[in-house]
Structures are given as structure tokens and as C-alpha cells.
């Protein structure tokens, strides 16, 4: 089937403008980040940071600096509080498995929101094989977790609560500080983990201010390289390793440190935070132009998630009724606009986005959803181009639907 790809790509020839908005699933690494990483592949610090030679010491020095930058960016007290992992998935697995195993015997209940990312949902489900119990907290129509329900379910048997700071699909900014407060008031021994991958670089996220015990960060979600992320662990809290092997600079994650990716992640963090206010204001402006423009051009839409400041500055998620999402992503791709959809069409099982279903969208609304995330590197021209091609694409797909499904 891979031979089809050549032909598929040929269909994209002649595209004059490309706008990559699928930053949920991967991202473009800005050139200055690539430039920062390149020397670390083969020019310097290519050694193992735990070994006694020059390339090793060079690696040790730069990795320590990166620990420093990342820990500072979230207000962590010590550089040891950060562990680099190969990404968000791995960090969330470590957070949930590692903290539950470390607390074995102290309780069984793991509480998560029903709109957590797939990796959190699945690893928590998996923990049930080890005798833990998963309890999901519902969300309202904008995706905010039900704090009263959270208060009800936290008990002496609870070991961990995991709620993302910003939802990855619909951009809901959760009241993490209040949630932590509620949890700790009921049972101070419960650990609080927050996947901050979609909050980091978009809203203020300070572990001391929020009082979270564990947090997950992702590199590509701030336009750093893929295959890199980090976990924050509050000093004094025990976590069990989930992988075994040669331990180097970090006791929670064995294996050889990937210096170029760590450098790239740190550079991405530096760039995201050095003009934080201006960066997020720009994202917010582009996001709103995109959303308002789509609503001005098309009817039969549903806006998914909250509006304004309670929404992540980068996130736009719209259900386009009477158009199927997968067909739309392909149609848009042929015009150089790259987005993703919550459609279930790549599966035989009818399971569209669990997040959209959790906020009360019916299946049809979920199938027609498109998710777009802007970055500070997008321009107003990019958004104008999307607004130019999107209505035509939607109208063509809607034309194929015709009267099908009209009751």
C-alpha cells in the first residue's frame, strides 16, 4: 500500500500555500530550534553524560542546563524534579503506573476525568488488572470537570487523581488549583497528577502555585522535537520506575539520554516563554480570527469547548454538520490545509472522539469535527488562506452528502 503514497503526494503538486494546523498530532520544528539541536548530533556533547571523557562531560553540562531551564519554566524547586521521557505518552504512563505501584497497599482508587487523553485513559484502565479501580469524573458541556463530583469521590481509598490542565481536543482550561485543593482537603495523601502538555507555553502553569505533585510536559506540543517530553515530580514523593536498565542522570528513566532532543525541547521552551504574553496574545488573535471567520462563512456548525479566556489560546474545534470529518481532512489536504478530525471513520468500531461524546455531542456531530491548533509562527495570511479554501471544501463534501440522512 505504501506505493500508493507516491500518487497521493502527486495530487498535492501545485499547492501554493500550506498551513499546518494539526499541531495536536505533530508539529513543525522552527528552524532556530533545529539549528540549536544540530551540533549535538555529531559536533559536540555526543557522549554519554555519565562517562568520564570530554564528550561525556560536555553532554552532562548541557543536559544539566536543560534540566535547569525546564524546571524553572514551571516553577519547580529543584532540577532533580524533572525527568526527561520520550514523550507525553511515556510521561503519563510513568506518572500513573509509577505512582500507583509506589503506593501499593495504601489504596486502590485512581480518579481521572472522562476527557483525559487516550494514554491516561488506557493506562488507568490497565491498572485495573493490578487491583486498582478507575473512577471517571464527568465534565459539563464545555468540558469543565465537575468539582462537586470530584469532592464526593475522593476518599481514603484514593491514591491518585489525574486531570489535564488543558484538554487536548477542546482546549478547556481546567480549574486545577481548586481541584488540587478539593482533593487534598479530603485526603492529603492523594497524589495529584496533571498532564500539562496542552497548557505548557499557552497558559501560566506553575507547580508551586497549583500545588500539583506530578505534571507531564510534551516537547512537540511547544514545537520542539517529537520523541521528547518530561515529567515533574514533587520532591519527597516516591515513584516507581516502569522500565529497568542502565540508570544515568535520571533515576526514573533508564537508557542513554538523548542530548539533541533534550536541547531542542529546552530551546522550544525558551522560545515559548521568552515572550510569553506576546506569543499567547498572537495565538489568541489568530485562533479567534479562524473561528469567527469559519462561523461567518458557514452554517450548521457546532462550537466545541469554552470560548474566551477559559479556552487555550491555540485551540479551535468545530463540528461541521452534514460533512464527514475524514473526507474533509483529505479535501483540505489537497488544498494545503492540514487538520485532524474526531471522526471514527478509520475504525470499524463506531467510536468517535470520547471527548466530544463526553461534552454531549451526538455521534454525527463528532464525526464532522475538525481540530485546528495555531502557533505563534502562523500568520494572518495563513488564517486568511484557510478561510479562503475551507468553505469551498465543506461545500463540496456537503454536495456529495446531498439529501442523505435528512429526516
Amino acid at each position, binding site marked *: *500500500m505504501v506505493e500508493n503514497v507516491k500518487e497521493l503526494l502527486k495530487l498535492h503538486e501545485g499547492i501554493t500555500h500550506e498551513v499546518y494546523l494539526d499541531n495536536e498530532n505533530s508539529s513543525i520544528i522552527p528552524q532556530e530550534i533545529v539549528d540549536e539541536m544540530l551540533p549535538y548530533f555529531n559536533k559536540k556533547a555526543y557522549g554519554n553524560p555519565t562517562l568520564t571523557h570530554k564528550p561525556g562531560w560536555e553532554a552532562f553540562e548541557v543536559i544539566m542546563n536543560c534540566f535547569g531551564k525546564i524546571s524553572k519554566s514551571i516553577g519547580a524547586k529543584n532540577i532533580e524534579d524533572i525527568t526527561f521521557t520520550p514523550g507525553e505518552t511515556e510521561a503519563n504512563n510513568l506518572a500513573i503506573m509509577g505512582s500507583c505501584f509506589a503506593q501499593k497497599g495504601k489504596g486502590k482508587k485512581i480518579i481521572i476525568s472522562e476527557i483525559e487523553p487516550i494514554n491516561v485513559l488506557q493506562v488507568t484502565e490497565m491498572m485495573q488488572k493490578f487491583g486498582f479501580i478507575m473512577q471517571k469524573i464527568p465534565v459539563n458541556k464545555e468540558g469543565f470537570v465537575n468539582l462537586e463530583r470530584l469532592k464526593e469521590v475522593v476518599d481514603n481509598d484514593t491514591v491518585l487523581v489525574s486531570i489535564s490542565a488543558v484538554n487536548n481536543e477542546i482546549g478547556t482550561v481546567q480549574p486545577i488549583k481548586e481541584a488540587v485543593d478539593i482533593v487534598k482537603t479530603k485526603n492529603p495523601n492523594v497524589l495529584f497528577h496533571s498532564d500539562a502538555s496542552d497548557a505548557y507555553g499557552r497558559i501560566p502553569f506553575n507547580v508551586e502555585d497549583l500545588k500539583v505533585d506530578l505534571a507531564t510536559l510534551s516537547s512537540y506540543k511547544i514545537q520542539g522535537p517529537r520523541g521528547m517530553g518530561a515529567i515533574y515530580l514533587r520532591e519527597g514523593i516516591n515513584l516507581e520506575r516502569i522500565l529497568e536498565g542502565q540508570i544515568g542522570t535520571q533515576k526514573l528513566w533508564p537508557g542513554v539520554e538523548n542530548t539533541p532532543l533534550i536541547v531542542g525541547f529546552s530551546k522550544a521552551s525558551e522560545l515559548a516563554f521568552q515572550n510569553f504574553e506576546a506569543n499567547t496574545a498572537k495565538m489568541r488573535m489568530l485562533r479567534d480570527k479562524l473561528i469567527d471567520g469559519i462561523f461567518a462563512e458557514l452554517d450548521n456548525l457546532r462550537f466545541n469547548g469554552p470560548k474566551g479566556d477559559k479556552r487555550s489560546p491555540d485551540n479551535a474545534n468545530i463540528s461541521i454538520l452534514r460533512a464527514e470529518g475524514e473526507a474533509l481532512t483529505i479535501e483540505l489536504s489537497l488544498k494545503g490545509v492540514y487538520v485532524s478530525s474526531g471522526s471514527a471513520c478509520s475504525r470499524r468500531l463506531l467510536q468517535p472522539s470520547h471527548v466530544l461524546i463526553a461534552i454531549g455531542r451526538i*455521534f454525527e456531530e463528532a464525526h464532522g469535527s475538525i481540530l485546528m491548533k495555531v502557533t505563534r509562527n502562523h500568520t494572518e495570511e495563513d488564517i486568511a488562506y484557510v478561510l479562503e479554501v475551507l468553505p469551498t471544501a465543506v461545500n463540496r463534501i456537503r454536495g456529495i*452528502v446531498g439529501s442523505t440522512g435528512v429526516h
Partner: protein
Amino acid sequence: MSRIPLPYNPKVMDLFRNPKNLGKMDDATVVAVAGNPACGDMITFYLKIDEEKQVIMKAQFESYGCAANIATSSIVTEMVKGLTLEKAWEDITWKKVTEEIGGLPSVKFHCGVLAVGALKRAIRQYFTQKNVGGPSWIPAEHTFEEKQALEEEELAKTLSKRLKIEEEKKAEK
């Protein structure tokens, strides 16, 4: 909850971009629908039948679905043109449709199944609506494709119902 790469072949892409026999047919002899928007997969199938010769003069479709759904629906309308109802019933299977379109990723086989389900449903319906009793070549029992279409529709209903119950439970809380 997993994703699968979907490198569609040129024929699928061509029929997705320029679907043949697309649109509502006002003078259709029979119209059949298969699938459900809740599945993200629904087809309306129109047949114009030469009633004397029992030949399909033309077929058209409309589709709510992915690229594979659109392409398979379109190719079925091409494949049945000029066939007798009996030959269309006997010859057009989902496997043949998949073959004709140059292959589909396995997760998309059901698109071809649904398209053929819509065709078979239309042919069966033609005899039901004429009230003449089906010919011997139409078995009383549903074919594989018709069963699959039914199953998908049932599943959509069940899921929607479950969703509604959850919604109500949530409202109570």
C-alpha cells in the same frame, strides 16, 4: 482507539475527487438507504430500471462518509450500469467492489460492504414495492452485505440510546 495509516490508491482518490454518478435521481425507479449518520457512514442509492427488460439503466448515489465510502458507492453505480437485476444481484459482491477499486485498507472493507448492501437493498425493495413477490434468485434470507448494513444501523441505534441514557443520568446529577 487506534489509528491506522490510510494510503488510498489513485482510483479511490480519483472517485473521491470526481465522483461518477453523484446526486439525487428524480426519476428513480427505486431508492434505498444504508448506514446511519451516527456511524459516519451512510449511502442513498438510486436505480433507474428498464422494467420490461429488468435492466439497470443507470444508478446514482449520495453519500455521507469517508473517501472510501464515496469512492466505493461511486464505483458500484458504474459497475451495475446495463446489468440485469439478476446479474447485478449475483455478480456484485463487496469483494469484487474492493478488487475493482484497486484495493482498500482493511479497516475500510466495510465501506464496500455498505455500498453493496445499499444496492442489494434497492433490488430487493424494487420487488417488494411492486408487490410481485421476489424472483427465485433473491433468497428470503438477507445476504452478507445486507446483514452488515443492518448490523451497523442497529449498532448506531444502540449506541445512541446508551448515549441518551448517560446524558439523562448526567442531567440528574
